[in-house]
């Protein structure tokens, strides 16, 4: 009879740590763990989005989405099932989707490898299947690869969270040695012909939209804490109207005057990563893996008062060819 009580006690006590066992221990960085609802399943939490001209094949555009911060350390190393991971492309500058590249994942096998399916819409319609950890060719041109990689983001997150305490002596890349899940896709520039000026964002849906991201740290910095879920579930086309005033208030609180704050808010909203895919340049033209977006944004947001976090590059070198991200640690 005693064992009944004992078992009950054990199971109930287990509840206390179940939620905490889920990852997302407050890594509010580029977009890591930016909202309470997202933190419950880190695999649906978009870390970063990159769009750049391929350094090895300039006729191709590369799209990268990273999710599941600290994959393998405290977060899972498989993509969530029944979840769509999407690159959304605006081709005419209205921040409304014109093309979507949608990835879904199946059950991992004994080795952790998952089936993956890419469906496209708004461009040549196709359905491509493959597996994670492998390069998968796209019949209309290009390829994709999904799996665990070195986290390409570099930033002195500790210094940032400690109140912008950056110094050459102390600052280190918090993301050194950490892995992330990533979807890397490259497609010919011609995919979007005749358009070359695109707006790109990534989103996760189940089918309800859970997270979205264009430029780094927009939701993290420019949106009040209580509205981060609302932002994640919103549409870029509404950003200026819905979040513009809040962003201006935050920019002013950061020390900018009203005209500067308005101009910055107009530049950074809607949260879409704008890119001229015929141009090899980097952030704010798209975002390359090597772009020190933190320094650029610190300068921009602080009016030059905080020029750097003293972390200038990733802990390991990126690859010169597809899939560009470094292998996992």
């Amino acid at each position, binding site marked *: 009879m005693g064992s*009944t009580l004992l078992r009950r006690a*054990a*199971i109930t006590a287990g509840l206390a*740590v179940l939620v*905490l066992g889920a990852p997302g*221990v407050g890594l509010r960085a580029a977009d890591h763990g930016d909202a309470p609802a997202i933190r419950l399943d880190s695999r649906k939490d978009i870390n970063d989005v990159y769009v750049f001209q391929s350094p090895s094949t300039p006729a191709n555009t590369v799209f990268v989405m990273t999710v599941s911060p600290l994959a393998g350390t405290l977060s899972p190393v498989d993509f969530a099932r029944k979840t769509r991971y999407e690159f959304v492309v605006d081709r005419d500058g209205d921040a409304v989707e014109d093309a979507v590249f949608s990835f879904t994942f199946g059950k991992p096998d004994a080795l952790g490898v998952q089936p993956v399916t890419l469906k496209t819409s708004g461009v040549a319609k196709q359905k491509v299947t493959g597996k994670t950890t492998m390069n998968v060719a796209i019949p209309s041109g290009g390829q994709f690869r999904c799996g665990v990689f070195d986290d390409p983001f570099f930033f002195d997150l500790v210094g940032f*969270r400690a109140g912008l305490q950056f110094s050459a002596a102390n600052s*280190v890349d918090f993301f050194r040695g950490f892995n992330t899940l990533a979807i890397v896709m490259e497609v010919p520039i011609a995919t979007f012909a005749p358009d070359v000026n695109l707006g790109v964002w990534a989103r996760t849906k189940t089918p309800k939209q859970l997270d979205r991201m264009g430029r780094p740290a927009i939701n993290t910095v420019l949106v009040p804490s209580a509205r981060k879920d609302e932002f994640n579930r919103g549409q870029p086309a509404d950003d200026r109207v819905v979040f513009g005033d809040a962003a201006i208030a935050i920019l002013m609180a950061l020390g900018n005057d009203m005209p500067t704050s308005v101009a910055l808010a107009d530049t950074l909203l809607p949260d879409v990563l704008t890119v001229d895919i015929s141009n090899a340049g980097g952030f704010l033209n798209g975002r390359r893996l090597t772009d020190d977006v933190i320094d650029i944004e610190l300068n921009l947001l602080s009016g030059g008062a905080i020029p750097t976090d003293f972390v*200038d590059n990733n802990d390991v070198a990126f690859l010169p060819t597809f899939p560009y991200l470094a292998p996992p640690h």
Partner: protein
Amino acid sequence: MNSPLGRRGPSASAVCALAAALGAGAAFAGDPPPPSGPEAAIRLLEKRAAEDPRDFLTRTLLGGAHARRGRETGDLACYVRAEEAFRDALRLKADHVPASTGLAGALASQHRFREALEAAGGVLAKDAADGGALAVAYDAAMEAGLYPRAAEALAALEKAAPGAPAALARSALWAEVHGAMEKAVERADAAAKASAEAGEDPEARAWYEARAGDLRFHRGDLEGAKARFDAALAIHPTHPAALHGLVAVRRARGDEAGAREILEKVAAAAPTPGVLFDLSEVLAALGKAEEAEKAQDRAVALATREGPWRRTYRREMAEFLVDRGGDPERALLLAREDLEERGDVHGHAVLAWCLHRCGKQDEAAAEMDRAMALGTHEPSFWERAALIRLARGEKEKALELLERVRATGAWFLGDEGRRALESLR
């Protein structure tokens, strides 16, 4: 400053690029994802924490990794280390919410429920919708028997994370404690389904399945319970809650040898006092008196270690001492101590039983009434309540309660309850 080569310098960078490219050849040849797990995570995080004395974030993550290890092994020492790591993080940054939430969880896991509530309350004062803090606040309030506070936390959690497995599982527990078993099973099933659909990690999915099994077991549905425990073990073959559930099913079917087989495996991997006391019971039932005593001695040694062990396993010790341990007076002291920290319905039931064994039948009856005040569906409550009533001469009520136990599942009746039922019929 924004150069891609940065401080590392061109030649070093070129070397790194070459090394990475060479490494990529191997790592990108279709290899499975790199191994993950709490041990590897702990080693990595400890190294990083040592490298950067400012790094409160890594220390917070380290606390989380220790807590995960504790969940998988049942080893209380992991929660002690988790608490240390979270406190280290908070020394570096006192307002770091995830460390505060983690600390609350680590405290709850050491059965310091009131401290856990206070820590979670601190987080919720800053962000009333923090899912982690709400979950800990709910769990700690339930264990402390602060049910109105638990209800508030649950309502807020369901609002903050509607349909999330963690919220559904807590809703199931609430329904169970209030006797609404249909609803409890429905919520637990929904939690398991949602967890599977979301593709949560195996440990979590197995836990939800085991919970659905546990509720079925208590409703008397042995087949349904076994199916869910089996499903849990198919997901996570060594999940402690699932294995423990399967032990209960086997014992309910009289398969003590089968129960022993599982318990010995669990005891080898995660020797907690609860497991060892159960193993001792099973061995005794199989006539293995000497082995039973050894298991019992190990359980007592673990449960009475100084530090968090003694507090955490106080209730288990009271349960042991009151009957098999032959020291109801000491059991009563422990049960009273336990109730001060952990005033849930189960705490009242244990105290009631200790009072009964000490011959304090009026107090025992009053305590049992408190245990049953919420209408909790718990056959062991009914059996104990019946035996207490019988000791007070209330035969009719005792018979009613014992029949209720038997109708739920004859295996819930212990020898004493069975004999009482036969004599009362």
